[in-house]
């Protein structure tokens, strides 16, 4: 114990106020537990401050400009001017409002908020170092701890985020001018979302990806729709190349160099390089060894279905507890952690975690693909509805993509869905509910869907899987 330290006690200590942590803290407080939430940076975590929310703000804003500029077919002629600084201010306003809301919610539910960085000093204690020199520290004794420290972008060797032209996803969401030329390293979902944003803002975007296609992990026919659209927007793709470094160039910009596995080098001129090659869990600030914990090889804290680590009284939720690194997964785990802390029989027993990519068009998936269903031993019944057969899709001018539903042929249970197309991120909710409830194709197909909506495509796909679709040819 450091001289001058104050020791406080709490029943539940939550470390990290992202979508896993603040949700856990609020639920724990709702359950009557004395709860303390420690955050070293900003309430709402990466999601609200530097991830989901700001990126969606930009995506929507740039869509507005892009739509207006490309609506000649609808008889609209416009040449929108984009004020990047103003767009950023608007985005900041949205973020402030949400993070302020999180803080208020925590307080209103009786959560004690502490600003600082928490490090374990024992199995039941942490020291919280308050931000800034001379701000002091305090020791917090806890009965249960919920670790929700999240993740940070992986830094590539040769690309230091501290250098101005090297952008992390967070930096890219905080620019006040639009770069003319941008190299994006990584064609995963973050790279693809931001490539689309900048392409729509008029940036000349070049994507460099080690693997052979965009969006690894998604089915080919799903990824292809997004890749084609991105190419149409002017995004250039270079697959099989790894970024090896960058240097200043004579024209005031930079040159990004890449290398193939065979050692073939290429270089791309740009004004900035965005590195989006994945995220790594944050555990190095925690002094985990003092609590008797150790991250696994991939840097995650391993947990059971009650979100408990090897030490039963210490939970881990969200990105730090493993893939998939998704905000809604973190929140779901946070709720379970808090309820388990309150002695309830909560558990992570979801059948599926939906995921969305906010590219143009959007991708959203939930549950099993056809191949995964086969692997698990199901005989899948698969149905598809292309958006170019949807009346509503035609009226929005966005007809790329499809809805696919995967079900168990024998029982009809819906097992999964893949949607690529307009509002895919919204449409997937219905399939997620169907999967969790154990709904059958017949349940989905027999539920009346509003006309004319994109959601009808979900119903049609279910009908198609049953061989009974009206608006598509049954296969």
């Amino acid at each position, binding site marked *: 114990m450091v001289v001058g330290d104050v020791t406080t006690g709490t029943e539940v200590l939550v470390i990290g106020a992202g979508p896993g942590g603040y949700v856990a803290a609020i639920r724990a407080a709702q359950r009557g537990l004395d709860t303390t939430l420690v955050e070293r940076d900003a309430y709402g975590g990466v999601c609200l401050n530097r991830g989901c929310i700001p990126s969606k703000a930009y995506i929507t804003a740039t869509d507005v400009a892009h739509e207006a500029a490309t609506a000649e077919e609808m008889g609209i002629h416009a040449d929108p001017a984009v004020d990047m600084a103003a767009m950023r201010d608007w985005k900041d306003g949205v973020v402030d409002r949400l993070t302020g809301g999180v803080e208020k919610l925590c307080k209103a539910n009786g959560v004690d908020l502490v600003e600082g960085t928490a490090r374990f000093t024992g199995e039941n204690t942490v020291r919280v170092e308050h931000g800034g020199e001379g701000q002091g520290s305090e020791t917090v004794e806890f009965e249960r701890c919920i670790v929700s420290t999240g993740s940070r972008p992986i830094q590539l060797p040769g690309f230091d985020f501290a250098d101005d032209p090297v952008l992390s996803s967070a930096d890219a969401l905080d620019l006040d001018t639009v770069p003319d030329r941008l190299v994006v390293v990584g064609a995963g979902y973050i790279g693809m979302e931001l490539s689309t944003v900048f392409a729509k803002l008029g940036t000349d975007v070049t994507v460099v990806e080690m693997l052979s296609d965009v969006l690894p992990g998604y089915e080919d026919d799903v990824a292809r729709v997004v890749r084609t659209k991105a190419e149409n927007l002017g995004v250039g793709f270079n697959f099989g190349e790894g970024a090896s470094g960058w240097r200043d160039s004579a024209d005031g910009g930079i040159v990004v160099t890449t290398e193939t596995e065979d050692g073939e080098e290429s270089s791309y001129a740009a004004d900035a390089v965005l590195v989006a090659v994945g995220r790594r869990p944050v555990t190095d600030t925690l002094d985990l060894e003092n609590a008797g914990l150790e991250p696994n090889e991939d840097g995650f804290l391993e947990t059971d279905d009650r979100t408990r680590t090897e030490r039963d009284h210490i939970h881990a939720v969200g990105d730090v507890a493993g893939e998939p690194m998704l905000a809604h997964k973190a929140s779901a785990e946070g709720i379970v952690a808090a309820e388990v802390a309150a002695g309830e029989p909560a558990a992570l*027993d*979801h059948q599926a975690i939906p995921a969305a990519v906010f590219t143009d068009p959007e991708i959203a998936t939930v549950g099993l693909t056809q191949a995964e269903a086969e692997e698990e031993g*199901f005989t899948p019944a698969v149905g598809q509805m292309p958006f170019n057969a949807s009346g509503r899709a035609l009226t929005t001018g966005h007809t790329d993509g499809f809805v696919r539903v995967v079900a168990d042929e024998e*029982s009809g*249970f819906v097992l999964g869905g893949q949607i690529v197309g307009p509002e895919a991120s919204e449409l997937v909710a219905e399939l997620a509910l169907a999967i969790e409830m*154990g709904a059958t194709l*017949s349940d989905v197909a*027999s539920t009346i869907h509003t006309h004319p909506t994109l959601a009808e495509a979900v119903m049609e796909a279910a009908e198609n899987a049953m061989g009974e679709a009206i608006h598509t040819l049954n296969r």
Partner: protein
Amino acid sequence: MTIREFKLPDVGEGVAEGELVQWLVEPGDAVSEDQPVAEVETDKALVEIPSSYDGTVKELRAEEGEMVPVGDVIITFEVAEEAEEPEAAGESEAEEATEAEATESEATEAEATEAETTTPGERVFAPPSTRRLARELDVDLQSVAGSGPGGRVTDADVRAAAEAGTERRTAESPEPRSVTFGSGTPAVSRREPDEPTVSRREPDEPTVSRREAGDRTARAVERVAEERASSRAAGRERTLATPATRRVAEELDVDIDDVPTEKTREGEPFVTAAMVHDYAESQRAAAETATEVEAEVGSVSEARAAEAPAETLAPEETVEATGGESGPVPGDRVPYRGVRRSIGEHMQRSKAEIPHAVHYDGVDVTDLVRLRERLRPIAANRGVKLTYMPFVLKAVASALREHPYMNASLDEDAEEIVLHDEYNVGVATATDAGLMVPVVRDVDEKGLVEIAAELNDKVERTRERTIGREEMQGGTFTVTNVGVVGGEYASPIVNHPEVGILAMGAIEKRPTVVDDDVVARHTLPLSLAIDHRVVDGAVAAEFTNHLKSSLSTPERLLLE
């Protein structure tokens, strides 16, 4: 192929051995996992032992009738390689080697079988709320058979599983699938311990002139009425159901508003596919019975015309000889075991410890007969068959309240008489295996229809031997309806540690003096046995008087 030994599993509740009552398979039979292979009776219950393997029966290592200790190998199977090993794997390295030599076709076969019998991905289809309920009730969802469309597991399925206590059979020790009931409580009370005959249909209903000729006709007709009652159209205006359930209803040509249900969602009646199936089934059954009975009634009338009225009980409803088709025959020595012995030992203890005294009386129940006739259709509209028993139970609860020492137990060790503050009345019920006493709890707090519904359900499940043992515990008084079989008075044995037991004779018209005239009135003979250590004869008489006033003037029950 490899040989697997299968040991008599621990059937729970500290049972160390069981009698192998019957083999359900023979050597050479193909069996699938979970298929029952044997019936084993312990002193707690009759259980079916399920196979843990897909394969072929190789050898039976126990004789029917043999007492087998838990853990002894009772049967061996030939199992194809790769068939999922529920038993601890790697029983011997050599075995593995043999398995490896198995032909490919066998392996493929085994995989195919497995694919058919296990759920892909171990997935259970149940909504999140149901999954949570399962955790709360500590039920393993994998072990619950879903009643929803496609086998989806519902809240009701989980609750039923929790009640039945069907824990997931673990690989190591497969538990019996249909543990039925135990008799840690008194399974008991009648005098006739070996009486095998009991009307299956309404043992709790005092019989009104049952043994008259033509009774069979009446009964047959009543059966139709019953079948109809069970298939009675609910006729609601609005019913909630999933689209898949509606489709099932359409396919079976069932109006979903007619399907009886007790479930609700958002306050609206809610129907599942299983209920639709049941209803369709019951309608078919009712139609069939109606046809059968027409034929039966015809033949009975003819028979009656031909001979004197000497029938006693309708043959198809009487004898359920112990053991069924392959049961013991005269000359056999039948082992005194299992439930029979459990009843016997309990009886012995009651009779040996308790100094019995029996009080006899009779009550004019003409008004009760009329009242019950008036209420019966109303209860039937609510889907409940109303017998006399609920009235008697209410009257008993009322009398127990007046006479707290009748609702008591003698704690000899503590030298105290425990006066109970609950009125839990057991109803002696005959089953194939012997007498069981399901308990209706808190009779004083329940209405007639509620009691009737609960009683019907419990009696039925007792007969099916699916009732939980906890539902046969905690009684504070017992009623036994001897009259349903026949007779007026009896000397029942008190159900230890209770203080009293009431035997009801048959409700029949008997000569009764009313206003100095002898007239035919419906009367109910009563026999009350008491523990004379706790109460005296005077209390028994007062208690019976209270019962009589309630039953002769049943309006009094309204005041309860």
